[in-house]
């Protein structure tokens, strides 16, 4: 039978209770998912709020991506809790000095916001489908429209106001939700590896690049699957966003590490022993060199050379995949790495990956991949692609209208 607890071997001296590592790889998946949500929402906002036309091909898809991933954000937490049936205790009786107490409210608010925004965006489609489709699907669309069948220009203007307001509200909500995850780690004074004021900011920026990278990969993949040409200005725009935020992330992560080393507080010897020993591959090689510096260099080269066409798509997609990997490694190195450095500052533990366990590899991978399945299903029900959106009411969207206004001005 699978043992209840898995213990970690160690070197040096560690407190006896530390030999069971509390937060497993599910807690790596959790900030990874919230990060993807925040990043995807950022792209969606670039179009819906800031009216950046070049992101129109992924504007709606970004929102669906954010929703699909957000729905699964609580999953790793629920699987990790000793008493998942008590998961709502922090909501009923929040203990406000705890960062985690905020999660239920923040996540709940954000999910509702996403659902509302998606509903407003797809209301015309639902109304149209309810009229056109026979059978159960048509009836489902009719129910989903919630009796709001008015597609007049006035009604559409009203919808757009809502979409704009929700998209604006969603920016601080998405980023707040992820910045908070950084605070969960950064605010703890018990672990030198986590205890950093920069942690929430680092989490936030890495979140944005992971979400942008995910959208690049999924958009290019979807174009291949749908056998439609990839919109080059869109991909190039996403590459610019990725480049900018990736540069910030790299600088911030570098500063954070430099701070730990430069301050050289108690425990620095063991941290240095750890990062120059076991962490050299996952931290310096995989997270920094391969996942951060390489895509930045490649993107810089492509922007400088004005690369276009298939080479641009292949290059940007490769960079996006590397960034996705880098952010995963960053989450791993923070969550697992922080726990591998003993609180005694005199020992190093080694987290054991378990394959089949409630918090094991199979579970973690399943939770990480499940949002993709949901997203696929959602895109079947609610087509997000511009060229298939024949249901679009012939009238500029919020972003378009703003662009037109700017041009007229």
């Amino acid at each position: 039978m699978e043992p209840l607890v898995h213990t970690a071997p160690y070197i040096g001296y560690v407190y006896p209770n530390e030999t069971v590592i509390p937060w497993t790889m599910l807690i790596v998946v959790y900030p990874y998912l919230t990060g993807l949500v925040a990043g995807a929402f950022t792209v969606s906002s670039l179009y819906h709020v800031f009216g950046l036309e070049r992101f129109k091909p992924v504007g709606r898809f970004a929102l669906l991506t954010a929703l699909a991933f957000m729905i699964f954000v609580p999953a790793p937490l629920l699987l990790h809790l000793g008493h998942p049936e008590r998961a709502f205790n922090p909501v009923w009786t929040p203990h406000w000095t705890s960062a985690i107490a905020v999660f239920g409210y923040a996540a709940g608010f954000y999910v509702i916001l996403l659902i509302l925004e998606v509903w407003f965006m797809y209301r015309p489609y639902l109304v149209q489908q309810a009229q056109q489709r026979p059978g159960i699907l048509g009836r489902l669309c009719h129910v989903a429209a919630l009796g709001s069948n008015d597609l007049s220009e006035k009604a559409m203007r009203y919808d757009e106001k809502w979409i704009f307001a929700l998209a604006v509200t969603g920016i601080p909500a998405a980023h707040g939700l992820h910045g908070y995850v950084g605070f969960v780690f950064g605010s703890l004074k018990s672990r030198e590896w986590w205890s950093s004021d920069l942690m929430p900011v680092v989490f936030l920026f890495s979140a944005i690049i992971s979400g942008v990278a995910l959208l690049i990969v999924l958009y290019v993949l979807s174009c291949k699957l749908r056998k439609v040409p990839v919109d080059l200005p869109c991909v190039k725009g996403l590459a610019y966003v990725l480049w900018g935020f990736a540069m910030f992330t790299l600088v911030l992560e570098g500063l954070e590490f430099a701070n730990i080393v430069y301050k050289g507080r108690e425990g620095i010897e063991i941290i240095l022993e750890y990062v120059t020993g076991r962490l050299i591959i996952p931290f310096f090689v995989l997270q920094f060199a391969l996942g951060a510096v390489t895509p930045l260099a490649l993107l810089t080269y492509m922007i400088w050379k004005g690369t276009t066409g298939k080479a641009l798509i292949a290059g940007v997609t490769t960079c996006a995949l590397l960034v996705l990997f880098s952010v995963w490694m960053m989450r791993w190195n923070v969550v697992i790495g922080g726990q591998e450095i003993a609180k005694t500052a005199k020992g190093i533990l080694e987290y054991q990956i378990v394959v089949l366990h409630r918090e094991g590899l199979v579970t973690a991978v399943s939770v990480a991949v499940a949002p993709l399945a949901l997203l696929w299903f959602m895109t079947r029900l609610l087509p997000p692609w511009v060229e298939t959106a024949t249901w679009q009411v012939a009238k500029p969207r919020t972003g378009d209208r703003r662009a037109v206004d700017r041009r007229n001005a």
Partner: protein
Amino acid sequence: MTNPSDPSGKARREFLRRLGGAAVACTGTLTVAGTLGVMKDAPAKEAPPSGAGSFPTKDYDWTKHRWAFGVDATKCIGCLRCVEACKKENDVPPDAHHFNTWVERYVYLEGEDKPRIDSQHDPVNIEASGSEREYRFANRYAGAKVDKAFFVPKLCNQCSNPPCVQVCPTGATYKTKDRVVLIDQKYCIGCQYCVQACPYGARWFNAKKGVSQKCYWCYHRITKGLQPACVEACPVGARIFGDRNDRQSPIKIFMRNNKYRVQVLRPETGNEPNVFYVGLDSEVA
């Protein structure tokens, strides 16, 4: 070590049940008020709910006590009876990875600046005892020239500013008025944030029960006038326990006698521990 008058621990469970019941009676609010988690907000001082001027039970008033713990590292012989007593008394899993209390051994060998540190959970020591259920320190430095060596018993510091309480999202873990940090096992969600937040490694996760656990100075005993199991088991008086409100209590005498030598662990954290040590050197954290 089991309470001789209550080998099954029935009285303890009854006591805890009544503790929860008193909270309900006191607050009269939500159903969750039946948990210990709300008791910290109860109007204990002004309006004792259960008669006889006592709270949380009629036999015990937690506003009248200020418990504290002392450790005299110069006396500890590393026999580990305290660890075994605690495991039995508090139903701690009998293995080398879960402890409410443990003992660290610091050995300075000749010519070495840093001490060699181990505890009973070290594989060498477990091998020496022959079982994860029994604990002893292996005679691993028998052939070496030892400059200095000492033992340091460790346990929950029941901090005045406990970081574990700060991070608990539900309030399932809380500070009582008599200065002990308790965990309501019926309300804990098992997120283990408190385990992360404790810089002393005092908390551990009970996978079977799905909740966090730690030393609570045998609250079920001290509220009946008994000593914690580890204190009672210590053959050399290295563990001292008592009420700081009582001038004649062992802890008060210990603090008085060692006025300028008493230390706490990691004072820089601002946690303000309530376990006071004598005989540590700077390497102990």
